[in-house]
């Protein structure tokens, strides 16, 4: 049997003696498009950061591609797109090409320059997100949605097998959110990239994803999105509080907060 791309076992995390995550176990298989859903402060971003090795869990273990994350060397297999507003210096004097080429830094190896083929790789990654026409533009001149596509291209340029995205649509207007998720779905479907996504856009994302994880310090549901309706009202309440209700649509069931 093929090892899951990400396997989390019994993870807990405390931040300044406050429990953020408790006994989380879940796995992400090749080809999944997983959305991690949950209210504010439910530990979604913390879970992603643990997957990425940015923070260490208080207990538990993580395997990436079947290898313990501490020993895992092929970091370029795991692409990451952070919340734009959190980490990006918006006035940075760089072109789109320079930013996307930054995604090749790890793959190229320490002490080495970027390969001559870097520009072709950058073009290909930009094409995948529909931004090839912007290759020579300054990244600070782009709109929020365009910048986020550039950051996805940066993650794609190293040809990752799994892409982890932390609320990538923050600051993007509603119309662009739709086309953004369409683009993610096509990456999953056509480029066979496994996607793990933290988001609040429950309505918009539901049609595109294959799996859902409902998180609020602990996992309340994890499985195919079609099985989401099997959650009991008590489970829903425990997951999202009493404001959550189930709305039945033709062809499926969706949760609304």
């Amino acid at each position, binding site marked *: 049997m093929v090892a899951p791309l990400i396997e989390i076992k019994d993870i807990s995390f405390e931040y300044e003696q406050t429990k953020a995550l408790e006994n989380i176990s879940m796995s992400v298989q090749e080809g999944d498009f997983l959305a991690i859903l949950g209210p504010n402060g439910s530990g979604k971003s913390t879970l992603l950061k643990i997957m*990425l*090795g*940015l923070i260490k869990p208080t207990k538990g273990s993580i395997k990436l591609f079947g290898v313990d994350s501490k020993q895992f*060397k092929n*970091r*370029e297999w*795991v692409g*990451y797109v*952070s919340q734009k507003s*959190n*980490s*990006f*210096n918006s006035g*940075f*004097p*760089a*072109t789109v090409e*320079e*930013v996307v*080429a*930054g*995604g*090749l*830094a*790890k793959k*190229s190896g*320490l*002490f080495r*320059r*970027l390969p001559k083929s870097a520009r072709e790789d950058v073009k290909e990654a930009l094409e995948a997100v529909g931004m090839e026409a912007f290759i020579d533009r*300054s990244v600070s001149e782009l709109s929020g949605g365009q910048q986020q596509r550039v950051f996805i291209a*940066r993650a794609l340029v*190293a040809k990752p097998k799994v892409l982890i995205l932390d609320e990538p649509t923050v600051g993007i207007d509603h119309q662009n959110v739709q086309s953004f998720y369409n683009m993610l779905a096509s990456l999953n479907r056509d480029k066979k990239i496994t996607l793990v996504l933290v988001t609040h856009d429950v309505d918009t994302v539901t049609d595109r994803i294959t799996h859902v994880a409902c998180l609020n310090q602990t996992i309340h549901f994890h499985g195919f999105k079609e099985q989401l309706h099997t959650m009991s009202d008590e489970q829903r309440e425990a997951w999202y509080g009493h404001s959550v209700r189930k709305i039945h649509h033709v062809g499926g069931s969706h949760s609304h907060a």
Partner: protein
Amino acid sequence: MLEAIFSYEFLQNAFGAGLIIGVIAPLLGVFIVVRRLSLIADALSHVTLAGIAGSLYLSQSAAVFASLNPLFLGIFASVGGSVLIERLRSLYKHYEELAIPIILSAGIGFGAIFISLAQGFSNDLFGYLFGSVSAVSREDFLIVAGIAIVVLLFIRLFFKELFVLSFDDEYAKASGLPAKWVHFLFMIVTALVIAGSMRIVGILLVSSLMTIPVATAMRVSKSFKQTIFLSILFGELSVITGLFTAFYFNLAPGGTIVVTSIFLLLVVIGYKKAAVSRKKGAIA
């Protein structure tokens, strides 16, 4: 003056060191500015002052240290200061900026004590504070050249890592780059450049040569590499013009170099504003 440069060793030293600093200070300065670490350069320059003043005091009070080049203790203090800043930044995770005033004050504090303990090096000290054309020795020049080799090698080896770290440090860590080590080495190299530059620009003005040419370049550059190129260009223009002016009018080169760089900044800001107005006029 060109004839004089070829005739007098002290002018060769000053111009040689100046030309090197005109490259390495803005080159490293680009990364300092985009990483919003400009004030750290100020803190380190004041720590260097403590090292220089301490060395001048030691050379007066102990015969063993009489021939010690103050630059060595200056470099030692600057590198030590950069390590301490990093320690303090990790100690005060939620108030990282606190490290800067603490180290800056410590630098001035120790500097003031050594200056008041020692007697009669006010001329030397003036040169260290505001730079000097005549005081750059062959040994100083060689130290600056050595520092330049370290800086250029560092940038050559870690350019892509530094770029990613500067643009988005969380992404750098997540993609498995040795962000912590690159940052630590960056701080050490910054400390070296500050200590090396102060013979020409002076302790109090050294951070300006790392930031003002970059600020000027950022007004007109379209890419990161262009920002580096233009920063070095504006840095060299400032150093060359500043050194010539200082030599002819017997002024402190730190002052003339910084005033030239400010002048260039104002010219570029004015040019940019005029270009924007013209563009708006054309559209209307």
